[in-house]
Structure formats: structure tokens, C-alpha cells
């Protein structure tokens, strides 16, 4: 048993750090520090191109598709170092979500057509899963895809589509057999966002930002060749995708970065002649969350180690998701508490606003990607066997 990275892993970490120190553009990093630039298309695209140029565009892909071929451990190190260096997160929808499905279930043509453009940030992908009546209960989705010769005719609506306002392509779960049981009649299709009949309406969120969209499909015609895998087998691919989405779901790097920020700010806030980091009551709260994060870091490494030892990503990811989001939300709460009344101001140029905006926005963590309630169901059923 050894909880530390070995020499080879340490050398890799140093290499990543060095790369980030020299190659992450200062303007992007500064935007990330000031406000969360992970919602800015240009920054994400520019950073992806830089990573791609280095050969690091797809940390989790095998080499044959242009990926790095890195071990799980290296991927974990890489993502955490990027987050800690204030690099924007790579756009998951292409690299982490649709690409693994295309690699595993797509045709050679689909692989050649889509994967290189994802890697090079030439296509911006988004996800069409949830519908108004189908959130946690995804399998109840209703969007229709009716066969008409070589085409599907799509009608319906998708919601909670993240960053789709910038998208070139969308992958959707659609119902190709309305008569089958809910999970049986679903197909997985790739849709060019420029196809006539698609309309995107951004949803204003509580923090004032536009991050998710409602997308309507009115008689949208998509070539059948854009379907991945077999007709009516989409649910299988969706579940496969879910497993991949959950790599690094704990967000250790993000938590560490924001915890450091919290500690720095606490150390700079003076109360009764000492800093809030030294204040017993507030300091204990910071200590508590740092301890929990320390434990989660070890737990995360244990899960990676188990996966590497030939286990597929399992329901353990649900634990990482719940605890990771709880910790991130807790850190965010403490950032607001630290500011106190200064967190009331809500304007872009006000120091307090970053923490407040993050607090509002990060409520999503326990809702999306399978709500934390759904994750608890998964733990109860899949791990505890209840």
C-alpha cells in the first residue's frame, strides 16, 4: 500500500505543471480567476487547440484515435493539475461523452468523420437527453424519430441542454419505437445543429447567466447514417456513456483550487486581531471541509486503482459524485460566509460577486448529472443490494 504517487507519476505531474505554467494563456487564466471562464466558448476552444497541439487533446482516448493513451492515474493527475492551475475544463460533451460512444459503437466512417474534429475543437458538441417530463426518469423521453427512407424525421423538445447555444452538433436520445417498453425503443443519433427545423432558446438561470437551453425540433431531417449503433439500442449506449462521464466526477482539483482560495481569503480577513483562518469557529469549518476533501482524495484514488485493476467504472462513482459535489458546495458556502455582507453586492466588477455567483450557480452540482437523490438510489440498489 502506498498512497503517494510513484516517481514516474511524480515526473508526469511535474511535466503537466510545467506545461500549464508556460502554455496556459494568462488572459484565460485571469478570466477563470475573476469569473468562471469555463462558460466562454473562445477560451475553451483556444485551450483545447493548445492541448491538441501538445498531443494532450484527449487524455482518456486510446492512441489509435489520437488520444494520449494515458493510464487512469495520469488522467486523474492531468485533470487535477489543470483545474488547480485555473485552466478551463475541456468540453465534456465531445471528448468525454459522445466520443467514447462513437469509438465503441460507431461505424469507421463516423469515427473518421467526427473524432478528429472533436480533438481539434473544430466541432462544438452538446447533449440532448432530458425533456420536460423526463429528468431523473430519463427513459420516459418522448422526442420522436420517424423513419422516412434514408432519414429520420425528428419532432420534440430537449431541455437542460448545456452550452448548446454554441453547438455545431448535438447527440440525442430519441424514441424510434413508441410501442416498445420505455428503455427498448430509444436510439442514439448525431444531429448537425444547422439542420433546418432546430431552434435554440437559452434559459435564463438564477445567477443571470445563460448556460442551458431548450431546443425544439420541428420536422428535423437527419440521415439514418447519423445513428450510432443499432436502432432501438440507444439506452445501452447511454448507460455506457454514463460510466465515462463519471471519470473524475469528484472534481478534486476544482475543490482544491477553491479551498485554497477560501483559505487565502480567510487568512486575509481580520477579526479581533487575528485572521478568520485562525478564528476557532470559522477555522474549524475550513478544517472540517479540508479533512473531508483529504478523505475523498484517497477514496477517489482507491476507485481509480480498482478500475485500473480491470474493473469497469462502477457504482462507486455515485459516492464520488455525492461527496464531491457536497464538498464543492460547502466550500462555496464558506466563501460566501467569509465575505459576509460584502457578498450581497451582485455586479460583475464587485469583488464579492464571484463567490455569490458561484454559490448560486453551483446549486446545479447536486441536481445535474443524475441528482444526488438518484445517486443515493444507485448506491442503495447497486452497492448495498437493497
Amino acid at each position, binding site marked *: 500500500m502506498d498512497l503517494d504517487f510513484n516517481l514516474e507519476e511524480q515526473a508526469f505531474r511535474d511535466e503537466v505543471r510545467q506545461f500549464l505554467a508556460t502554455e496556459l494563456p494568462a488572459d484565460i487564466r485571469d478570466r477563470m480567476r475573476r469569473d468562471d471562464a469555463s462558460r466562454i466558448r473562445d477560451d475553451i476552444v483556444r485551450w483545447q487547440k493548445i492541448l491538441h497541439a501538445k498531443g494532450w487533446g484527449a487524455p482518456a482516448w486510446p492512441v489509435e484515435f489520437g488520444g494520449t493513451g494515458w493510464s487512469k492515474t495520469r488522467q486523474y493527475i492531468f485533470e487535477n493539475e489543470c483545474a488547480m492551475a485555473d485552466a478551463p475544463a475541456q468540453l465534456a460533451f465531445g471528448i468525454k461523452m459522445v466520443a467514447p460512444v462513437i469509438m465503441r459503437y460507431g461505424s469507421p466512417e463516423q469515427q473518421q468523420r467526427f473524432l478528429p474534429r472533436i480533438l481539434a475543437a473544430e466541432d462544438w458538441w452538446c447533449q440532448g437527453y432530458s425533456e420536460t417530463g423526463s429528468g431523473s*426518469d430519463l427513459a420516459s423521453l418522448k422526442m420522436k424519430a420517424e423513419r422516412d427512407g434514408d432519414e429520420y424525421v425528428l419532432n420534440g423538445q430537449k431541455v437542460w441542454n448545456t452550452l448548446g447555444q454554441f453547438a455545431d452538433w448535438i447527440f440525442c436520445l430519441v424514441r424510434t419505437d413508441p410501442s416498445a417498453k420505455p428503455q427498448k425503443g430509444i436510439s442514439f443519433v448525431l444531429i448537425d445543429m444547422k439542420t433546418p427545423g432546430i431552434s435554440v432558446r437559452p434559459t435564463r438561470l438564477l445567477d443571470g447567466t445563460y448556460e442551458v437551453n431548450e431546443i425544439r425540433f420541428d420536422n428535423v431531417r437527419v440521415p439514418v447514417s447519423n445513428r450510432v449503433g443499432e436502432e432501438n439500442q440507444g439506452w445501452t449506449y447511454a448507460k455506457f456513456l454514463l460510466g465515462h462521464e463519471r471519470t473524475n466526477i469528484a472534481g478534486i482539483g476544482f475543490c482544491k483550487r477553491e479551498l485554497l482560495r477560501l483559505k487565502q481569503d480567510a487568512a486575509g480577513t481580520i477579526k479581533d486581531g487575528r485572521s478568520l483562518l485562525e478564528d476557532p*469557529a470559522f477555522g474549524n469549518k475550513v478544517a472540517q471541509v479540508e479533512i473531508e476533501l483529504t478523505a475523498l482524495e484517497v477514496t477517489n484514488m482507491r476507485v481509480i486503482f480498482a478500475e485500473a485493476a480491470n474493473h469497469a467504472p462502477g457504482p462507486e462513482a455515485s459516492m464520488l459524485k455525492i461527496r464531491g459535489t457536497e464538498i464543492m458546495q460547502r466550500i462555496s458556502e464558506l466563501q460566501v460566509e467569509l465575505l459576509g455582507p460584502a457578498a*450581497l453586492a451582485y455586479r460583475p466588477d464587485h469583488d464579492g460577486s464571484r463567490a455569490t455567483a458561484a*454559490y448560486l450557480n453551483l*446549486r446545479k452540482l447536486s441536481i445535474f448529472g443524475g441528482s444526488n*437523490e438518484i445517486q443515493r438510489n444507485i448506491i442503495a440498489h447497486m452497492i448495498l443490494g437493497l
Partner: protein
Amino acid sequence: MDFSFTDEQQMLLDTTRRFIAERYGFEHRNQVRASADGWSREVWAQLAELGLLAINIPEEEGGIGAGPVGNLLVGNAIGEGMLLEPFWSSAVVATHAIVALGSAEQKSKWLPALAGGETIAVLAHEEASTRFDAMNVETRATPSGDGWELSGRKSAVYHAPAANLLLVSARAGDEWGVFAVPADATGVRSSPYATVDEQRAADLVFEKVALAADARLGGDARQSLQAVLDYGLAALCAEAFGAMDRILAATLSYSRSRVQFGAPIGSFQALQHRMAEMLMHLEQARSMSYLAASRCTDPDPAARGAALSAAKALMGQAARYIGQQAVQLHGGMGMTDELDVSHYFKRLLAFELRCGTTDQHLENYRRQLRVA
């Protein structure tokens, strides 16, 4: 022991609720919120007409004199409607400050205009230096000629952009003072901004603002200023309760109608227990809003302070729990600007931070723990 309200008190609540139901629905509030000022002069005039701006003016001064229980009930309704108008700042805190501290001349000068809505006043008290000690004011008033010269900074003054009259707390030698400053006086600089709960506030700078001798409200305000703040805090607690009550009602309603896995989500036991927990927080918060109203005029500053810190701490925790769970149980819908839920959520977040944070009031309470 009596938890009933008088007919007059009940009428005050009904009047305010009816006004909000008829004239301040969520859609109308959205329009007000999107306007340049972020609040409505028309609504303000209507509040004046209904007599609501006079509830903190004693009957002998021509007001309604509804006192803390009046603020409790009207505050509930205002929180339910998430009013954006400067009611709390002007009609509660500033009005009460003038009633409590002002001379007969000052009262007759300002109270009628406050009741009529022509004068909008705010108490500018909090500063960077009052963060951990509400009485650690650094703004200073120094004698100058026949009057005073005022210098200092005030931060996050709610509704200051709407005000034409600023009541500014300041040290005056060894004493404390509250000074009436016209919002357009020379030397007053205001940086206005929107707050997280969609209201408007400002950071204020006072640079050698020249004031006449009669600008000072009363004499040494060492005791009375804290009493005014406590009075206002009780009213703020009432508002917060109204918001909590509504956000839970919205959550219950959503959970009954939202169907997933073939059943309303309100039928899932884990969510039922969550909502039961929310209700318990709500009822404990209601009790504390009563306690705050009952004790906020206690002449004993220690007893008053303990009760109000207890109320603010517990209600701040309830606000967080109820607010967060309401958003959570609404799922993605709770994150959107479209439902009222996210707006209540932000109002409750602001409540946590205003008039002393939850942490600070818990500490205040701890410091007075006694073995008795």
C-alpha cells in the same frame, strides 16, 4: 401566553396580502425588477395610500402605531410578495429611528412625508469596520461652526439609491450620533448596485459633508442606535419568514404535480422526509419570528440582544436549509429565473447576510451564555 392577533392586526395582514395578490403578482414584480430603478414609485404611492408607510409612526404622531406585531404581519406579507420597494429601510427602520431619536421638530418635519411616501429615508450604519462588531463605527462627525462635518464610509446600504434622506450613524467625540443627511448633499458619493436578491443598495462615501446643528437626531445614541437596529432586525425576520413559508408551499405544490417514474415525486419517502424536515425548520423559524417581535422593544439590551441573536441565527439556518432544499427538490426548474423559487432562494440568501450574519449572531449569543 397568547398567540392570537387583534382584529386590527389581522386586518393589516389581510390588507397587505390582498394588495400583493392584486397588484404585485410575480409577473408584475418581474416588470418592476427589470425597470431602471428596480422598484416602483406607483407601488410606493399605493403603499402610502393604504397607510402601510405609517405603521411605525405612533398614533399621536398621526400614524398607525402598529408596533412590532404590525411589522411581524406586514413583514410576512412583504416577504411572501418579495417586495422590491424600500419598505423595510424607510417605513420600518428609518421611520422608527426618527420616532425613537428625533426631536418634536424633527418628527413633525419628516414623519408626515415618510408616511406619505414623499420622503424615502434609509439608515446608513454598516461599515467594513462593523463586520464583527455592529457598534464599531468609524464614520465621524466633528463640530464645525454651528453644525457638524461628517466623514466616513458606509457599505451595502439597502435602498440607498431610492432614498432622498440618509440617516448616518457616526461617532461624535465620545458620543454616538445619528445624522440626517440629504442624499444630494455636497460631499456625498454613492456607488449603487443591485444586490443578490434583486434589490438595490449602495456603498456611500461622506467627504466632509457640512451639516447644520439640527441635523443630529437626539443626543448620545449609544443605547438607542442598537435598539433601532434590533427593531429593524425583527421586521427583517418577519420578511424572511414570509419568503420561507412561500418557498416551502411552492415546493410542496411542485412535488405533488411533478411526475417521475410514474408517480408524483412527493410520493417518494426520501423526499417526503426532506419536506417534513423543511416544515420543522419553518415552524421553528416562525416561533423565532414571534420571539423577535416580542422582544425587540425590551428595554433591557442584554435580553433583547440575546433574543434577537437567537432568532437571527436560527432563522438564517432555516433560510439556508429551506432555500437550498426547495431548489434541490425543484431540480433544474429551481435553477431558472422563470419560477419564483429561485427568487425566494436569493432573498433568503440575502437574509442570511444582512443585519449580522448567522455566524455573527451565533457568536453574539454564545458570548452571553450564562449559568442561571
